[in-house]
């Protein structure tokens, strides 16, 4: 029986299940809990206002500086977009693995007579949206600040959008192509897991090389021989072959009224060529790669985790002990999870490198205020690192139970025991890390004994709270359907958690900074120091109260959510 080829479905038709599901999900979340929706809106708005406020102030200052100011604004935009580009590349590699090789709809789509180009474009669009929405949300207040400070006019949003769309497409095509290539090159067994490891490794190299470019030199014009050298560095593009530079140029050209069509041509031309090449590569490699990626099951056990660890946990009731052992086994046996420890190591390395390169103890006289400010900045950085680590390892804890939740919920396991096991399993390593980095970096900074005590106690309290926040937001916004653990922290709930965690950190630092600086100044300069004042004790008590409240309220909310969960 001969049959003519079926008419190809429209691209929009292929994407319909995705956008409809997203729409229904957002409607359900909205109607499920209005309070949660409002809280979310409030936190989001707070974060946006903060980012916008900082960007606005910095840009207004740049604008007031003759000649160098505009160059600095362009340079900063280029550096921000370059940093985003790294995030986008990693995010796209992780997302492409899911959308092109692991997603549940693939069996249906691959088995259907859908043309390769349409399939590629549909999946690429899905990858772009999934991997880029968070960067787009972060970029919005920054672009808005540029538009307002430089008076971009009513056409500016369209120009910014026209610059941003190809900027998002290019790393998506690159990430997708890299994933496709790796799936084909490596042996079928464990391709999925190897891929996560390789992607992480690639981003680590990019991050380290970016850090060793030492962008802080730009903030130290005295390090250059003369102003001409400094201006020359500012005028030279940081990365003339990267889309981040073209996007920054396109936006700045519009804002500074410079008629230069090249950045526009480069951006859109490169995006069009990249998509065409990506589609061609997809046509050649996808069928084999997809088939290989289905064969990734592993049989033999690595890391059985019995013996000493099991003996160490012997005093716990069997359900808690086996629960903890189960979580540890799943973590260390899943390469997509533990390989993220490499990212953590790099984040730490960059952080320590930053602290070491501060010119505080290079022999020059540094104002007292600056030293104290840097001590608090260090506390902020340590807190940020801990919040990011909790996002990677604590936030996904509930989501990872996923489809196996039937077993836990139908058994007599107390949800409280489950929550506590997950909380301490995440918090103890986090506390060790918090203490190590805080003590080490404060030692590098030569802080006083008092500041060391303040920093250590603050970071311990913050760690307890941020871990509880991560676990609770993970329970409030679970991602049970995900095939890829690395994608969980990049979800909407992950973003909300990060914003909440950073707001809490900012609040603690703002509360502590004034009284602690006053005390240190008093100790250093006063002839008869007053010692510990009631104000200082009050501030300490308030910080303890806030952190404990954040911990207890979060855990209670998380527990309530787990108890109410249905599926």
């Amino acid at each position, binding site marked *: 029986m001969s049959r003519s080829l079926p008419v190809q479905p429209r691209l929009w038709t292929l994407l319909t299940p995705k956008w409809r599901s997203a729409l229904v999900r957002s409607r359900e979340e909205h109607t499920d809990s209005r309070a949660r929706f409002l809280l979310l809106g409030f936190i989001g708005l707070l974060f946006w206002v903060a980012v916008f406020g900082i960007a606005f102030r910095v840009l207004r200052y740049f604008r007031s500086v003759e000649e160098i100011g505009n160059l600095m604004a362009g340079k900063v935009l280029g550096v921000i977009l370059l940093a985003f580009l790294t995030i986008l590349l990693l995010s796209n590699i992780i997302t492409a693995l899911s959308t092109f090789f692991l997603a549940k709809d693939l069996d249906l789509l691959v088995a259907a007579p859908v043309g390769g180009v349409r399939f590629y474009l549909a999946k690429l669009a899905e990858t772009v949206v999934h991997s880029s929405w968070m960067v787009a949300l972060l970029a919005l207040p920054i672009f808005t600040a540029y538009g307002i400070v430089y008076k971009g006019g009513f056409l500016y949003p369209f120009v910014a959008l026209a610059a941003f769309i190809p900027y998002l497409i290019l790393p998506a095509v690159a990430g997708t192509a890299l994933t496709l290539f790796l799936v084909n090159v490596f042996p079928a067994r464990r391709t999925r897991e190897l891929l996560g490891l390789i992607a992480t490794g690639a981003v680590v190299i990019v991050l380290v090389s970016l850090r060793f470019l030492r962008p802080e030199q730009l903030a130290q014009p005295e390090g250059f021989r003369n102003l001409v050298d400094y201006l020359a560095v500012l005028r030279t593009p940081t990365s003339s072959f990267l889309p981040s530079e073209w996007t920054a140029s396109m936006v700045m050209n519009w804002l500074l009224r410079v008629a230069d069509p090249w950045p526009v041509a480069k951006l859109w031309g490169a995006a069009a060529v990249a998509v065409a090449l990506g589609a061609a590569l997809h046509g050649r490699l996808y069928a084999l790669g997809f088939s290989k990626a289905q064969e990734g*099951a*592993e*049989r*033999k*056990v690595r890391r059985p985790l019995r013996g000493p660890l099991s003996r160490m946990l012997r005093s716990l*009731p*069997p*359900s808690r*002990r*086996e*629960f903890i*052992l*189960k979580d540890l*086994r*799943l973590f260390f*046996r*899943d390469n997509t999870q533990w390989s993220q420890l490499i990212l953590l190591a790099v984040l730490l390395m960059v952080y320590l490198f930053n602290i070491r390169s501060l010119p505080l103890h290079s022999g020059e006289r540094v104002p007292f205020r600056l030293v104290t400010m840097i001590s608090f900045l260090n506390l902020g950085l340590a807190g940020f690192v801990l919040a990011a680590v909790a996002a990677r390892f604590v936030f996904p804890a509930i989501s990872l139970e*996923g*489809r*196996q*939740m*039937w*077993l*836990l*919920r*139908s*058994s*007599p*396991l*107390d949800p409280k025991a489950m929550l506590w096991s997950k909380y301490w399993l995440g918090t103890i390593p986090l506390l060790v890390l918090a203490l190590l980095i805080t003590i080490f970096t404060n030692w590098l900074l030569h802080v006083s004994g008092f500041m060391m005590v303040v920093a250590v106690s603050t970071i311990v309290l913050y760690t307890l709270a941020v871990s509880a926040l991560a676990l609770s937001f993970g329970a409030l916004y679970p991602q049970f359907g995900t095939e890829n653990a690395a994608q969980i922290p990049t979800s909407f709930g992950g973003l909300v958690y990060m914003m909440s965690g950073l707001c809490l950190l900012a609040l603690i630092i703002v509360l502590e900074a004034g009284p602690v600086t006053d005390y240190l100044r008093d100790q250093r300069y006063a002839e008869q120091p007053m010692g510990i004042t009631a104000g200082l004790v009050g501030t300490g008590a308030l910080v303890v109260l806030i952190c404990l409240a954040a911990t207890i309220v979060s855990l209670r909310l998380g527990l309530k959510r787990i108890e*109410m969960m*249905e*599926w």
Partner: protein
Amino acid sequence: MIRLHQLTKRYGRFTAVDKIDLAVPSGELFGFLGPNGAGKTTTFRMIAGILRPTSGTVEVGGIDINRRPLEAKARLGFIPDRPFVYDKLTGAEFLRFAAALYGQQGPTVEHRIDELLELFDLSRWKNELTESYSHGMRQKLIISGALVHRPEVIVVDEPMVGLDPRSARLLKDLFRQFVDRGGTVLMSTHTLEVAETMCDRIAIVHGGKIVASGNMSELQEQTSSEDLGLEDVFLKLTGGMRDHQLDTILDA
């Protein structure tokens, strides 16, 4: 025993389970049949304590599962319709974990795990990750998981899907012996021959309500179809596909 009283589950305006009353005493294997979307799985998930009823009560072994969930669940073995297990655990580790959830550990549990794996022909796969198991092997593993703590009541949703004929036969014998020793089994299945031969009593659910229940002769009596088998009784109660509809589909 299992007792459901006016059990109801609503999702917004949609009523998935509508005031179901049911009592399954000890020593009985009870079949819960119905077309797709009739409310069987929702009912079973409420009995297992995974879903909360909108109204009504569930008692397992005389204990209300929503008031004293831990005590009620300790008596229950639940086998869901889809065998989701932790991919990165071995079969033995999964069973050890399942036993620990019920507070059981030690040599007795290890012996029990070996027995169950042997019974279901999984011994050879004992120390291999479950991600390499077939659907049927996973199904057998979750059945073992439900039995590892020696429950009084088993609630099992579509147990035969994915099982080879030998395992299916084994499971039938296992459930029969379990109820003969005083246990209770509540089972849903679409394989009506299995229900007819295995179950002491059957309830047919349609649109979230029990439309008929009893033993085979009581069902025939309730539907005034004395000479018909379970399949015809079932189709009479739930509606079957008409011949002209099939013609339309196949001729298109």
